[in-house]
């Protein structure tokens, strides 16, 4: 009797340890990636938080000292940072807004009966694939250059002759180049949404007397809405980090007219070598992005998973 009970106990324990071993075996393939990501993103982030409470300039040896919340106080009062945040918002909102509107229009065009859809789509995605630094230079030197650029030349008959567009409208030009780059991205995502639509539903609506606009608003738009939202969210997460085209087109100027948060960080960290201040900018940027991204991504991917299951 006693021996039966003890053997039962052993069996239970073995079952438990097998289960535990199994759980670890399941986790094992996950570990290398997990450890890598923690090592290169999380631990440095903890260090960033640590540095953000210190005053430290690499150009002044021995300047490392605890400074409490000074860097954060500077964030609240510093005009450069306010300008950079404002520029980031203006840039992101206008680029995403315009490229979604254009992307929706072009996707609708490519989803209708037109000649050479495949070639059109192929050519359309080129702006997204071209190296951003290369594209920005081509825009600046060969298209917008007041002396030799094509656009000022073409605009001469309209009385705008030889305008230095990049200097006169720096933010508008950065937005234009980024819209050119992100419209194909939005177009691709929205086109995928349009193509998932059943054409018979639209046909039925037309038979029922709905005009093209009504059919678009009542049937097509609700269907592609999650696709537009997905494009908007992913797009914003990338556009918020715009650096290449600003570096190439305007270098944040003139003055600070096109300095966004990433460019300001670049200036503070790699031109001013102000480690403490750069770290404080980093911490605030992380908190803001994480809140927006986590909520947005969770909501969106739950929508898409529900639709996939259906």
């Amino acid at each position, binding site marked *: 009797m006693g021996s039966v009970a003890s053997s039962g106990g052993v069996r239970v324990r073995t079952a438990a340890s097998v289960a535990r071993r199994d759980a670890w075996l399941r986790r094992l*393939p996950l570990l290398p990636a997990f450890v890598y990501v923690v090592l290169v993103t999380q631990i440095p982030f903890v260090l960033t938080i640590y540095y953000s409470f210190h005053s430290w300039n690499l150009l002044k040896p021995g300047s490392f000292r605890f400074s409490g919340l000074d860097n954060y106080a500077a964030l609240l009062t510093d005009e450069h940072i306010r300008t950079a945040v404002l520029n980031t918002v203006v840039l992101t909102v206008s680029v995403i807004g315009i490229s979604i509107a254009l992307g929706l229009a072009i996707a609708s065009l490519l989803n209708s009966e037109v000649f050479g859809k495949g070639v059109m789509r192929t050519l359309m995605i080129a702006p997204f694939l*071209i*190296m951003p*630094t290369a594209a920005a230079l081509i825009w600046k030197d060969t298209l917008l250059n007041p002396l030799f650029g094509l656009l000022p030349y073409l605009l001469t008959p309209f009385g705008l002759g030889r305008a230095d567009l990049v200097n006169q409208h720096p933010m508008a030009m950065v937005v234009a180049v980024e819209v050119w780059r992100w419209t*194909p991205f939005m177009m691709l995502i929205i086109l995928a949404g349009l193509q998932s639509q059943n054409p018979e539903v639209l046909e039925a609506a037309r038979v029922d007397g709905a005009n093209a606009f009504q059919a678009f608003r009542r049937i097509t738009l609700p269907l592609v809405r999650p696709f537009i939202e*997905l494009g908007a969210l992913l797009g914003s997460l990338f556009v918020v980090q715009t650096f290449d085209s600003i570096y190439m087109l305007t270098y944040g100027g003139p003055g600070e007219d096109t300095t966004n948060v990433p460019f300001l960080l670049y200036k503070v*960290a790699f031109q001013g070598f102000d480690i403490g201040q750069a770290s404080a900018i980093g911490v605030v940027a*992380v908190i803001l*992005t994480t809140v927006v991204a986590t909520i947005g991504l969770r909501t969106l991917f739950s929508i898409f998973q529900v639709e996939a299951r259906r």
Partner: protein
Amino acid sequence: MSANAMRGNTRRASSFPTSKVLWSVVGWLVVFIFFFPVLWMWLEALKTEPQAASSPPTVFFVPTLMEFQDVLSGDFPPFFINSAIASIGSTLLVLVLGLPAAYALAIRPVKRTQDVLFFFISTRFLPFAASLVPLYLLARDLHLLDNIFTLVLIYTTINLPLGVWLLRSFLLEIPHDLFEAARVDGAGFLTELTRIVVPLIAPGIAATSLICLIFSWNEFFYAVNFTSSTAATAPLFLVSFISGRGFFYAKLAAAATLASLPVLLAGWIAQKQLIRGLTLGAVK
């Protein structure tokens, strides 16, 4: 019923050519505007320097490959090779680390799988600011600045979350019975991975590699801050055109064309994988 269908057909047939032609013209016009900067880059690259820097712009000219030869025989190749090492190296690392992780998250889900997934993706969208300063200081202290290996590691960090998400979305499509059968036959984890998983998600591996290639080949922020000469990548070669070189527009266009070529070709060839990759597998 059949009369109705026929009427529908004739109506469509009669209204269809004019509207189709009209919308095609509008569509091609829009596509031309968007594609034009790329076309202009190619045209400028085929000009001589005086033709490229002329006012009014030169439209008719005899194309020459002189500038391409000039760029290729000059100091451009090392930059291009660095880009290739950084992109291919990091893509391979992403696959090696990401495939087992995606497998664990898709086929043998652990507790809190959803949280692990969102932890991964949250790291992709962390601003540079989060880890920039400590990574820079670490690289400086280890004498790893201007070292291509550093860029390989950084690009792996950037692309690993995308890779895990994307590979998982492909793995979820493999019928579960296949793994059950393999396990009954006594296949271990590695056999399962190499014999079943890899062949079945070859398109997924292609999509992941494409996205990794695009992001690492075109990356500029870390390249400009972590390298200076020996490890400098293709975008940095272009930076040298901003100042101090005078008007070398044809040469700039030739270099820009060459620097953009690998990603442009890969993206065009793998258009189908592009959309799925860009949306982390959410849109098929």
